[in-house]
């Protein structure tokens, strides 16, 4: 499958290969998940921000 030309998607003036579209979609997904998922905390500092 990887040794064949990629499938290209064409909407209006946008022409993009399916692999590139998947990668961009994954990047957007990972970015959103990084924003909304709670980051684990080992302990809560009482002494200010550092």
């Amino acid at each position, binding site marked *: 499958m990887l040794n064949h030309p990629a499938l290209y998607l064409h909407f209006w003036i946008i022409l993009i290969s399916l692999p590139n579209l998947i990668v961009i979609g994954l990047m957007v997904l990972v970015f959103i998940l990084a924003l909304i998922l709670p*980051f684990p905390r080992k302990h809560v500092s009482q002494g200010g921000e550092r």
Partner: protein
Amino acid sequence: MNFTGKVREQLVRALPPEELLPDEQPAYVHSYVYLFGILTLASFVMLILSGIVLALFGPQWWHISATGHFFNSVHFWSVQAFFFFMVLHLWAQFFMGAWRDGRGLTWVSGAITFVVSIATAFTGYLSQQNFDAQWIAVQGKDAMNAIGIGAFFNLLNFGQMYSFHIFLLPLLVAMLITLHVLQVRWRGVVKPYPLPDEEQGVMEARAKSVGVEPPAEEGES
């Protein structure tokens, strides 16, 4: 005091050990968004390690042997991860305005690293020693000639592209990354944009209710 002593004093003043290798970060850094930079760096380490193995054995090995295929794939997927996380890092720093409070040069060094990384990846495509590499070189040479550097940077010259890819450009990227990380350590991670007064009040009340310090105002250090 002699020159060496002055340089040492300036370096220690600019980057004391606790700032150079901090074991704690500000409260707002507790988010996955701040991991994209180190993930880019980790991918770069994988790139260098797999690249060293490929350079040791050469193109015939990475095309023919199963182990060579494996290291070729590790190198390929490392570069995918490198650009994946670098672009996410770029997005994150853009939306948090990471050039603020005297961090302009940190942003610029990151942008230059991105551009040099693209050139490094491009010479990597040319160093594959397959039909893809030949096709990209034949197509790309016209762009090099059009911008007037074709005489110095000949895409059809495998030896030149290979030495650029395995020595000159990675060295430049490594130096730029080092400079970038030192700048981040020197200036610290940028504070989030200040909240509107109403939201600040809500955040302070919420922080007080769970017994932690509220986020600091802009300008404090």
